[in-house]
């Protein structure tokens, strides 16, 4: 049946919703079970939505029946209804309560390696005998380690890694949720955009750089997961007041490849630094973000332009957003018969003219 030809559009939508929501043989997992047991799903949704709200994210995962792109979209759309109350103070990642810390630069690093909860070194055997209910994972129960020295700082002191970028002029950071991003983007705009990018798209782009479509193939100076305190300025007293913690993954990637690199404090050649910080334990996304940050800067500095898609700022930032990409790809399901009629009209005209010439 045609999807417009009848007056039944409204009933059709209702019936389709009923079919989609039908849960044969009982209900799915509860919001609590998802929040505790599907922690990576919750983290991925918060990260791509750009909103730290575990309970709401779990609710979105349940409502979307596990479609995480859809869940991230639900959460972002909800955020559109909330006024912007204000901005937190700039968080200092050194204050993170660490549950995981790895540096792949040296055999022994100051502060030590902290493996923490991970399945990086587990054998990936599908557990056929395990309980079916999702179990809460350990990330929520460790106290974590306090301040640990940064390998990046040591490298910087030794003149091996470029210095930090100067603070952007102006009152505050760019706000991606309130302004349209233009390229070249400010650094805060670029990092925000990458931080809520779609993990799969970012992994693919970062992977392309590692495989030679671009030059960036860095070493992880710091890989950290932990709880980062968030503070807002007290309206009367002016001092910072801690309002909570957000679980984050932070990556500092260093490298100097194929002629690209930064400059040290004394303008001597040094390694460049790529930075990644994402909500939750989205580890491969945090690494991808650091690679893409370094790659984009490499592309901007090359005289002959970007050496691959991953180094092309407009290409990366405009295509890494999952909400926009999934929406537009799926809009092809909408009726297009008027524009199609218009295309047919042109094709018939071209065919008619071609036939005249041939005849």
């Amino acid at each position: 049946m045609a999807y417009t030809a009848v007056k039944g559009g409204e009933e059709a939508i209702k019936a389709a919703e009923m079919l989609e929501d039908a849960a044969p043989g009982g209900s799915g997992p509860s919001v609590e079970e998802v929040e505790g047991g599907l922690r990576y799903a919750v983290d991925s949704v918060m990260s791509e939505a750009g909103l730290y709200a575990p309970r709401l994210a779990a609710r979105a995962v349940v409502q979307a029946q596990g479609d995480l792109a859809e869940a991230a979209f639900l959460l972002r759309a909800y955020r559109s209804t909330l006024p912007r109350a204000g901005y937190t103070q700039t968080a200092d990642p050194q204050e993170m309560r660490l549950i995981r810390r790895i540096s792949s630069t040296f055999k022994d690093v100051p502060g030590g390696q902290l493996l923490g909860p991970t399945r990086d070194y587990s054998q990936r055997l599908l557990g056929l005998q395990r309980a079916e209910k999702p179990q809460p994972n350990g990330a929520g129960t460790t106290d974590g380690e306090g301040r640990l020295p940064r390998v990046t700082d040591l490298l910087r002191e030794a003149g091996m890694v470029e210095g930090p970028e100067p603070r952007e002029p102006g009152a505050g950071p760019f706000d991606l949720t309130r302004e349209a991003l233009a390229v070249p983007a400010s650094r805060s705009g670029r990092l925000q955009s990458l931080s809520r990018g779609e993990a799969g798209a970012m992994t693919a782009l970062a992977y392309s750089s590692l495989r030679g479509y671009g030059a960036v193939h860095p070493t992880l100076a710091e890989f950290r997961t932990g709880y980062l305190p968030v503070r807002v300025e007290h309206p009367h007293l002016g001092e910072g007041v801690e309002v909570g913690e957000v679980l984050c993954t932070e990556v500092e990637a260093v490298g100097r490849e194929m002629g690209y690199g930064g400059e040290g404090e004394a303008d001597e050649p040094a390694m460049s630094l790529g930075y990644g910080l994402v909500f939750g334990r989205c580890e491969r996304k945090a690494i991808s973000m650091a690679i893409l940050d370094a790659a984009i800067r490499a592309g901007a500095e090359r005289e002959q332009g970007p050496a691959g898609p991953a180094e092309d700022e407009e290409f990366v930032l405009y295509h890494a957003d999952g909400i926009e990409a999934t929406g537009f790809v799926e809009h092809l399901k909408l009726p297009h018969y008027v524009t199609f009629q218009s295309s047919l009209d042109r094709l018939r005209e071209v065919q008619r003219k071609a036939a005249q010439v041939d005849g």
Partner: protein
Amino acid sequence: MTVDELLRDAVPGLGNGPGYNYAFLDELSKRELRRKTLKAVSIPGHQVPFGSREMPLARGWGTGGLQLSLSLVGPGDTYKAIDQGADASVNAVNMRSLVSRMAEVETTLDARDATIVQTRHRIPEEPLRGDQILVFQVPIPEPLERVEPRISRARRMHAERDYSKMWLFLYESVAKHGEVTVGARYPVVVNGSYLMDPSPIPRWDVPKLHHAPNLALFGAGREKRIYAVPPHTSVEPLEFEDYRFRVESFPRGAHCRRCGSDDTFLDELTDERSGETYFTCSDTSFCDRRLEERR
């Protein structure tokens, strides 16, 4: 009912309101949208970037048009939504139910009764008046996208009014195919200045924008752009002196099988039993009215 009363109802736990702000978006966001719209009206055809919000419909499904409509509606407005010219199209139904639910406005199928007409891919056959606003859903706001996908470069071309690549594109299509092959989304020059994408309307509808008495607003949610054609503004399709702009043609004698019209944009259909091609009006409400008048 006043806006204030509706707002009070919308506070969760109070009254029987929806638990969302009036017209979904928070008030500051709506104000920003209206400011950007005013800027767009002041610079006809120029794309104004705005902080597009995520809406309860997917990106690419009309979120730009929806944001414009929600920033404009208030109590007393009457809203009409069409997709491909049809009010009953699923996307139009969805828009209408969302706007009537979130902004509690009257809806209509008759273009004459609407204060805001939101559309995807068509302009109603009924000529609009000066007290009506036509809101377009725009997938790709950049008319130069066909020749320059890089937005940063396209913006520079607009700033310099350098549209030579687009002219060349049209020339090449004439040279290769003996005809300009652009179907819908035909590039137009607004107010003798900016090149503009009129959204994927058929060429049939392009002349309706020229010196129209109504305001036309274009919203691209995913691409975060608003642009406008103010009332009584010139909108001219790109054309060569010897290869004129032409609207779609239908086979000789083609007419609507329902109302008999041969002066409207027609949908081409196939009779399932006989296999014959037949036509009906794309603007279904206009077709209904003609049918009634002829009875």
